[in-house]
């Protein structure tokens, strides 16, 4: 077995040199990409490398480098992996090119749904959607005769029932690590309570009834969580699920496949997916929709862009999807939604539908402010109102510095 793995390793290590196994064409222009490093990107870049002359940089800290690297002339990378959050700086700086002519030339297999259009121009090609939705232990809920929660009040009731029955100590898990994660959790809940993030003049409206309600609901949920929730990121929640320590969580759909991973999970087949719970009666599921996709740099020659786009099309083809069906909720033709996708489908098709995460400069600033100020509320140092006032202050300072507010 060791020998086989060694051989496999040897083959994979040849990425970057000319291996054009299943590629439709032989790429002779050097192409580099910079993207995040999760499983879906590994799958896509592996498929791209089949065309040869391609090297991928998979780096979870790509946000630090991407804007500057695309701003250089010539751009250090031809291909960039982005999401609806991280496309903003590239879009703002004009360092990614419109793809309409390339889509027309090589994009016959793309679905219209995949084309990210800004002002009528295609700026990116999406490959997958991602969202936080409810994952629950089917066996625990049905043992206790509980229905699948559809609102957060249901979640609280179910959590209480599970805790009272003593099935697990901490029925609820949440991605509430301070910083980016807790801010995203707040965004979900705030949107769920019908909150709008900004006024027309770019001032923020988080300090409102929806904001207070969102914080109170989050606090109520923490009663049923492992007290270390402020260090708990997606991986930690996933492990809690896998080790059978929690029964419910609003978790990223990209984590769904891990629940059934025999090597890691003790709860294979027991975790089911459902739509994200709603926060208020008649509201949208309390979550936001995300997409991941690729962009092509503008500071490169047209030949290079041409080659890069062809490589991308090779990476985003149906063969790749068939081989990696469960790694993501693909938007690409050939994807067969399994049970694992049920949560995303239910969330995305709900009426009213949850909003997409807004890709704006203000949102980036607000996200940071929320992530830094919220923990003080959960450690009990500040009231909800004071916390939201502090968020507003922090946002205003940052927005003035960034030139968003006068």
């Amino acid at each position, binding site marked *: 077995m060791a020998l086989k793995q060694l051989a496999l390793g040897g083959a994979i290590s040849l990425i970057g040199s000319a291996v054009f196994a299943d590629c439709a064409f032989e790429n002779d222009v050097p192409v580099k990409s910079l993207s995040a490093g999760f499983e879906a990107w590994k799958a896509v870049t592996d498929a791209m490398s089949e065309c040869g002359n391609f090297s991928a940089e998979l780096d979870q800290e790509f946000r630090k480098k991407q804007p500057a690297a695309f701003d250089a002339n010539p751009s250090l990378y031809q291909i960039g992996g982005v999401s609806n959050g991280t496309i903003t700086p590239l879009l703002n700086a004009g360092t990614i090119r419109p793809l309409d002519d390339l889509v027309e030339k090589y994009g016959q297999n793309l679905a219209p*749904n995949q084309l990210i259009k800004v002002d009528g121009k295609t700026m990116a090609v999406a490959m997958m959607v991602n969202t936080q939705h409810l994952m629950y232990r089917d066996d625990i809920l049905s043992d206790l005769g509980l229905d699948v929660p559809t609102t957060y009040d249901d979640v609280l009731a179910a959590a209480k029932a599970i805790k009272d029955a003593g099935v697990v100590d901490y029925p609820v898990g949440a991605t509430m690590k301070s910083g980016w994660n807790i801010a995203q959790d707040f965004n979900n809940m705030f949107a769920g309570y019908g909150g709008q993030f900004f006024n027309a003049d770019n001032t923020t409206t988080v300090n409102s009834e929806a904001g207070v309600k969102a914080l109170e609901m989050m606090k109520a949920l923490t009663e049923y969580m492992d007290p270390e929730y402020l260090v708990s990121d997606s991986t930690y929640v996933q492990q809690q699920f896998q080790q059978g320590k929690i029964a419910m969580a609003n978790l990223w759909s990209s984590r769904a496949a891990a629940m059934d991973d025999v090597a890691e999970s003790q709860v294979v087949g027991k975790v089911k997916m459902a739509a994200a719970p709603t926060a208020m009666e008649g509201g949208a599921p309390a979550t936001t929709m995300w997409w991941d996709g690729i962009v092509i740099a503008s500071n490169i020659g047209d030949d290079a862009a041409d080659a890069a786009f062809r490589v991308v099309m090779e990476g985003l083809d149906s063969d790749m999807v068939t081989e990696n069906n469960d790694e993501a909720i693909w938007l690409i033709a050939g994807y067969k939604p399994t049970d694992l996708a049920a949560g995303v489908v239910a969330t*995305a098709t709900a009426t009213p539908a949850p909003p997409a995460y807004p890709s704006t*400069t203000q949102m*980036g*600033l607000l996200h940071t402010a929320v992530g830094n100020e919220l923990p003080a509320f959960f450690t009990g140092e500040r009231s909800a109102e004071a916390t939201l006032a502090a968020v507003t202050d922090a946002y205003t300072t940052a927005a003035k*510095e960034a030139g968003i507010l006068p």
Partner: protein
Amino acid sequence: MKFRTLVAFVGPSVFMMLLFIAAPLVSVLMQSFQVTQPVMQQIEVETCTPGFLTQTCITETKTVPLIDEETGKTQTTTTWVGLQSYRNLLQMPRVWDAISTGQWGNILQIDFWKALRFTLVFTLLTLPMVIGVGLAIALAVNNAVRSLRGPVIFISLLPFIITPVIGSLAIYWLFVGDGIITSLIERWTGNDIAMFAQAWTIELLMYVYQVWHVAPFAFVIFYAGLQTVNMDTLESAVIDGANRWERLRHVIIPHLMPLIIFIALIHLMDTYRAFEVIVGFRSQAHVISLQWLTYDFLTPDDAGNRAISRASASAMLTMIGIVVLLILPLRRTWRDHKGTT
């Protein structure tokens, strides 16, 4: 030594330091008094993003930077704002407010003061512990059978040489959630314990980690120092009737004094810059350090914004803090310097 010879010797070193440290330092100093922002414009944009099967398009007014037609880069303006970034950082009105109303705790809700509090306590509290533990190990090793010393020194050095990120993670895993040590303590005490749920337990673990990590450095230097203790002085102290403790206090410690100062100097500098320990222990929610604050300002968010001016201001304040802390041990170096010439 002539001036020109000195320059020839130190030239390459000074050049590298000027290029890679002084130049960025000057630019940081400048940036702490300036704000550079893009020229913004409001435009109406239609954005289409994928749902699961269909696309949703929304039209909204967006504030975006203006792009220069000629260079193709974002237009920016740089304005001199004086001490504004420092004011944003220190938030003095809120501090005075807290003092005048007597609610001192409120000061610690401002990021900078929170970071300063932790950094100072972390630095000053671990300093005597590192020196104490280091000295204790050095004395104990010096006491040990000669054949054991090699392996013991080797094991003792491990916490110091291990990559800091990995060292702190190794300890983090022992305690986080139902980590083995936490569950061990739980079994002993019968209580449910969460080490990472409140600030003081995290801080305690961080102190333990820091002492674990730095004490070996102090140890190896003290141990080297102990090899050169003058045996004659020691024996005459015995003849004078000094007991073990008095010999330690009056002969050994004075002999090691320069080393203690050296370690204090290095420790103050390195610990005041604490950063990896915050990342390793994921303590951002409860405690942060000054360098972590600077780093956080500099880390771009999803939209690519970074608070460079405030980061520069906080870096300058960090530096000033270190210089103040170092004045005391450095006065001695100055005296030595005057003494040798």
